[in-house]
């Protein structure tokens, strides 16, 4: 596009003309019409993003201590579908399956039980958990940033992470099992945000400012409570468990976690996706949005409810993972512009892909597993700095 303009204008402008003249010629030559827009090809970018995410998912099955070929992993993954298809015993379907998957059948016995177990019991839940948590945190971050009209907001602005951390610490302190830790964390996150919302409703003046302040208040109360639990916890087993949980990790992700978080996250993301265009209007602020006929109270409540639900459940299975919810929405804006119609789907795909990528590093970078919350900062910060510098040059 830029090349075409340059060649076109250098034909009309005399050689050696000052560059300003050329720019003006190029600008005047374009006659505006609504159908030929001058925007980047967002569709292509989205397809590339999805391809990148899908290849990251496939590659992730082969990454880890137990070495496994990508092709084996794919075959293992497809095998239940194949056997299920065959077991249905529908003649036409059987034919199709045999034709499509004949290469698979010929190599059908290249894996053993250990490989099968690694793929299905260890890597699949972990990969799905990474996708879910990443998608949840970055979409919630994008939604909150719009609602608070502030690009520096992260999904724990209303205290979701602090509340979840307290819930998990409490469960660990009471020697409850892993399922209970998840549930306590989830409940803690919801209670924290509910308290913050209730407090903010009692404040006067600007509602979004009241909400931010109430969030800070509630978050500090819950972190203080977590610190107290750490103080009184058993230093041999409880304290390390709490500390490790707070650093965030997907190492213990199970299929039960994935089902639980998956259902809640899908339920929470659907309204955010459906209201994505209205969120543009909400970013204009209270008065302007109202003047265009938006029920700002209701829409804000929906955004808070959904974003809190997905954040709390994500934190409950992964621990506290910072940075993703703050930074992925920025990446999305740099690539897809500011329109929430594109930001929301992009944040879902990019957030999931990014967290999966980082989790692969967490699994392999050192002999012991590195907590994910530490790595997201180490990986995200330099990329973010680079993008900020590139963005600065462009404008």
């Amino acid at each position: 596009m830029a090349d075409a303009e340059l060649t076109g204008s250098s034909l009309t402008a005399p050689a050696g003309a000052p560059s300003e003249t050329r720019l003006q010629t190029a600008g005047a030559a374009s006659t505006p019409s609504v159908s030929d827009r001058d925007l980047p090809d967002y569709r292509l970018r989205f397809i590339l993003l999805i391809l990148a995410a899908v290849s990251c998912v496939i590659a992730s099955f082969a990454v880890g201590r137990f070495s496994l070929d990508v092709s084996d992993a794919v075959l293992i993954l497809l095998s239940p579908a194949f056997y299920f298809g065959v077991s249905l015993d529908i003649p036409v379907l059987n034919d199709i399956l045999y034709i499509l998957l004949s290469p698979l059948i010929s190599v059908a016995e290249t894996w053993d039980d250990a490989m099968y177990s690694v793929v299905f019991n260890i890597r699949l839940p972990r990969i799905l958990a990474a996708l879910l948590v990443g998608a949840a945190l970055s979409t919630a971050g994008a939604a909150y940033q719009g609602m608070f009209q502030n690009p520096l907001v992260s999904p724990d602005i209303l205290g979701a992470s602090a509340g979840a951390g307290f819930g998990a610490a409490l469960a660990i302190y009471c020697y409850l099992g892993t399922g209970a830790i998840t549930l306590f964390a989830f409940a803690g996150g919801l209670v924290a945000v509910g308290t913050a919302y209730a407090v903010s409703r009692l404040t006067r003046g600007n509602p979004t400012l009241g909400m931010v302040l109430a969030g800070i208040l509630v978050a500090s109360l819950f972190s203080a409570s977590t610190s107290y639990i750490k103080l009184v916890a058993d230093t041999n087993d409880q304290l390390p468990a709490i500390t490790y949980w707070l650093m965030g990790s997907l190492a213990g992700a199970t299929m039960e976690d994935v089902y639980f978080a998956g259902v809640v996250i899908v339920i929470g993301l659907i309204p955010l996706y459906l209201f994505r265009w209205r969120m543009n209007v909400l970013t204009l602020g209270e008065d302007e949005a109202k003047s265009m006929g938006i029920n700002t109270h209701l829409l804000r409540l929906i955004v808070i409810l959904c974003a809190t639900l997905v954040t709390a459940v994500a934190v409950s299975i992964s621990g506290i993972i910072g940075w993703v919810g703050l930074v992925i929405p920025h990446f999305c804006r740099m690539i897809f512009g500011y329109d929430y119609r594109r930001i929301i789907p992009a944040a879902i795909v990019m957030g999931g892909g990014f967290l999966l990528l980082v989790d692969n590093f967490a699994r392999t970078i050192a002999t012991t597993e590195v907590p994910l919350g530490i790595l997201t900062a180490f990986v995200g910060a330099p990329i973010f700095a680079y993008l900020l510098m590139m963005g600065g040059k462009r404008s």
Partner: protein
Amino acid sequence: MSLEISHLSFAYGRRTRLVLDDVSFSVKEGDLLAVLGPNGVGKSTMFRCILGFLRNYRGNIRLNGLDIKTLDHKEIAKHVAYIPQSTHPVFNYTVLDVVLMGLTNQVRLLGTPNRSHIDEAYAAMENLGIAHLRDAGYGEISGGERQLALIARALVQKAKILIMDEPTANLDYGNQFRVMCRISDLARDGYIIILSTHNPDHAFLYANRTLMIYGGRVIAEGTPEDVLDAGLIKDVYGVDVHIEDYEYGSRRHKLCIPIDGGVGKHE
């Protein structure tokens, strides 16, 4: 289409100082009402009451005969559009996206704007001469262009009453003129326009009615030519002015010239 304000009074919180004190006026189709008054006399508060943002006022605001306290934001938005001062946006939407937001009432609750919505927004932008900016970032265009984009957004909202908070604030001389010309075109097309301004000449040049607010009260109302005289401007703004009649071709206008205590320019 009518808007009647009667005995409107308002105070923030439980404070006893009235920001608006017994304000009454009404506007009809084709009116361009210039609201004048020093900073902080309640112009913006009055607009916020009319737009339904502030509801705990005393008195009555009737939109086509209906009390606006009984209407929700969606209903008010069908008839009244708000054009705020153009500020730098937090999120740099394209100009077309900004204009599309005016269609909020017409886009399905869970939907996104379709082809015909986009065409409509584009037509409004062409009408205001900013169609070439459709894909530019709203944060990267000039203040005058931003103001025109906000006007386009109000037009696609299809409200007939446009409320503008100092539409020429922060605009350069040429943009002030261009924006005001567009606004008076709209009044000629039958829109009701209520705008606040600090420039008496804008009232003389473009408005058919003017309202002078001082200390929350309406202290003068009528055509700019009748109402705005040197005494009133001295009382309200504390500036000595001379109101000059001038003729240029077929046009007759008044013009407000500050006389600076009669000293004049430093030689």
